[in-house]
């Protein structure tokens, strides 16, 4: 595993903790270098949007859940 890649994921995870993601409720988001680079209700479309950006690093993908407390 590329150490830089893991550190990038951890850094983006820590950044996410500080964000209000309520506007993305129910959506998949892709985060890279402390920016949300793609979003969509569908993971497939989120991945397609990320591919079209031709990024050098794969972003961190996260589903923002809607309204449910229980898991």
């Amino acid at each position: 595993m590329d150490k830089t890649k893991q550190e990038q994921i951890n850094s983006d995870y820590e950044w996410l903790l500080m964000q209000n993601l309520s506007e993305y409720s129910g959506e998949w988001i892709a985060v890279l270098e402390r920016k949300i680079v793609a979003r969509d209700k569908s993971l497939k479309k989120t991945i397609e949007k990320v591919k079209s950006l031709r990024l050098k690093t794969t972003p961190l993908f996260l589903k923002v859940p809607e309204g449910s407390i229980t898991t």
Partner: protein
Amino acid sequence: MRKGDLLVSLSYAFTPYEVGKKIILRPMLPVILMKNDISFPTMLLIDSGADYSMLTKDIVRDALNIDFSSLKKEGKTSGITGETEIAWINVKVGFGQRDIYFEEDIPFQIPLEEGKDPPLPILGRDPFFYKYRIDFRMGYTKDSSLGKFVIYPEKHKRSPTRYKKPMKIKGER
């Protein structure tokens, strides 16, 4: 596993989810899921109440590129979304911090029926909790909106003979 015999630990802040007027803290672990030549960075909910791990269908189909028609039905499971037919797939899970990094082969359940996905992908007890001890420290600070969970690799140094007897159920003779 790397550095398994050293005193190492990984600390993560809980992820706060705003639900109504309440803040719910969830132990979300940033990981890289690896299958064949695909790497998918995402977050898994560490769920000590789940017997096994489970992925959502979209992660399996769209991110890991697995053809559902190739999956074999291997029984049923029941959870908060009800009972569903499941398949199993093995996925390598990588996670770490600084110069500490672990990889584990984890069998994941895949719900095969529509509407039966867990709200979040789950890292359950078997086999993860056999390999790692996880401390949930929600009261780590006086601020109830903070806290951390800490992951330690198990060392397996104690004798298993002390623990091999099953626990007696109350009322049993």
